[in-house]
């Protein structure tokens, strides 16, 4: 494995992130702050506590997950799509590196960016609501795994996409609705029984539930199940990426 190649891709991608710092950092922080103002302060003050947690604090893990998932997906998908679009992918394909180095560089950078944004949003939330973290290490584990697995998914989307419209299609039409319907702003126990069962088919439910457990020690589904779900999702993405590079699908003719 070429450590220098991973480092080169990682630094190049992170430089792009810092080059567009306003778009990369302030934009998600601003939109999340608006969620806190609207849902946490304005509406949240009129809502009951959920599992003994104020509504403003309850939505913090969901909001972090919402941002982290969308950012990890879009950063990774754009990261690998842009070389395809500009033609610079020839360098990746003709260099003496395997998919391990390529994925480590691009996914590592996208995961780092979304992790940074997630942490900043967490700090921002303390300006609006009192926040407690019951299990900090588990919280960090969930956050890192989510950043990594959704960056992997974004990488797949970036390779699959043939144009900018397709690049936005899955994050907008699938990821965002799944996160909204995955219990970001509510506990699934608040839903009618039939919808509680249907919601369990949404993998994001397990991620948000596990992440929320690390904050408040309450969860919709067992935390072990959440860890299994995110691990399975990560493995699935890795297998798909391995297959893409093995067959050259959409990257090598």
């Amino acid at each position, binding site marked *: 494995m070429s450590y*220098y190649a991973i480092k080169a891709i990682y630094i190049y991608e992170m430089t792009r992130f810092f080059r567009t710092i306003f778009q990369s950092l302030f934009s998600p922080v601003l939109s999340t702050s608006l969620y806190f103002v609207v849902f946490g302060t304005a509406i949240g003050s009129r809502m009951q506590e959920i599992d003994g947690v104020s509504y403003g604090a309850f939505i913090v893990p969901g909001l972090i997950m919402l941002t982290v998932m969308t950012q990890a997906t879009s950063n990774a998908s754009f990261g690998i799509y*842009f070389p395809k679009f*500009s033609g*610079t992918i020839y360098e990746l394909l003709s260099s003496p590196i395997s998919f391990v180095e390529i994925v480590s560089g691009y996914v590592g950078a996208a995961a780092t960016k979304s992790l940074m944004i997630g942490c900043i949003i967490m700090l921002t939330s303390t300006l609006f609501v009192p926040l407690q973290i019951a299990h900090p290490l588990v919280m960090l584990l969930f956050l890192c795994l989510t950043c990594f697995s959704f960056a992997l998914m974004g990488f797949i989307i970036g390779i699959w996409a043939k144009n900018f419209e397709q690049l936005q299609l899955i994050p907008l039409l699938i990821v965002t609705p799944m996160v909204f319907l995955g219990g970001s702003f509510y506990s699934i126990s608040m839903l009618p029984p039939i919808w509680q069962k249907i919601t369990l088919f949404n993998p994001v439910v397990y991620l948000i539930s596990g992440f929320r457990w690390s904050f408040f020690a309450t969860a919709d589904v067992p935390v072990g199940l959440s860890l299994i779900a995110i691990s399975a999702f990560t493995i699935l993405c890795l297998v798909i990426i391995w297959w893409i590079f093995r067959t050259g699908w959409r990257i090598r003719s």
Partner: protein
Amino acid sequence: MRLLTMSDIICIQRLSKSYAGGSNVLSDINLNVKNGEIFALLGPNGAGKTTLISIICGIVRASAGTVMVDGHDHVKNYRKTRDLIGLVPQEIALDSFETVMRTCRLSRGLFGRRKDDALIEDILDKLSLIDKRNNQLRELSGGMKRRVMIAKALSHEPKILFLDEPTAGVDVELRKDMWKLVLALKERGVTIILTTHYIEEAEAMADRVGVISKGRLALVEEKESLLRRLGKKTLRIELQKPVNIMPTVLEPFNLDVVDNGSTFLYTYDKNADRTGITKLLSELSASGLILKDLQTQQTSLEDIFIDMIQKENS
């Protein structure tokens, strides 16, 4: 840069490439490239030059056949083979918002090399880009961007350099500068494979020439021997006064008459035992024609190439 001996560094055997739908881009290519030489690959648009290069570099997969680079299979030992190769593709492909220095650093890093800004600055200096090292690529002219492409390809010190139409669309001065650079790289032992539309480029630099047409390698030969073998010369005879009727004694020479009858063109094989020049001049004198000037012209590689492609097409 390591010193190299003159042996085959690239060995291509029975290489073919076809795409879904059955179109054959390359058919049964067999080619050896010698260590340290400049090999020019000539051919019309769509002949398969870029596909051949892309296969060797690992961008395109071959349908059949093998490519060995420095004794290593380019699929099984892709890390070893690609490590030796630098590629300057035909299209300028750069991240417009990056700086010259950073894009070169990325190229070096991708090939597993430790960061070495001094080396990159040296390359940029040789390519007259040192003043632009901190400029974004979108701020550079087309010619500068093409030089950045070369700098990127050289940033990991390759032993083999592929130049796919390196001077397409660049002005004459820059083209000459690039030729100097290529010849300097050859001096340092780098093997160079060049595809070009500019026959004069191959004529000026190449040690050997390959002609590819319709996906087949029509010819591989030493440039000098090709020019000798196929090279014809033309004797241009300018007359004091134009002639209306060709004298009968000159008919066997198959002269072309140009400039309204004031110039004859005589094509001959300079390698032949008898070129016929002496006899022609004496017959001209006997016909009472007074000569104004005489010139000889060597058939260029371009003429040979066009002739070959025309024969191939017919």
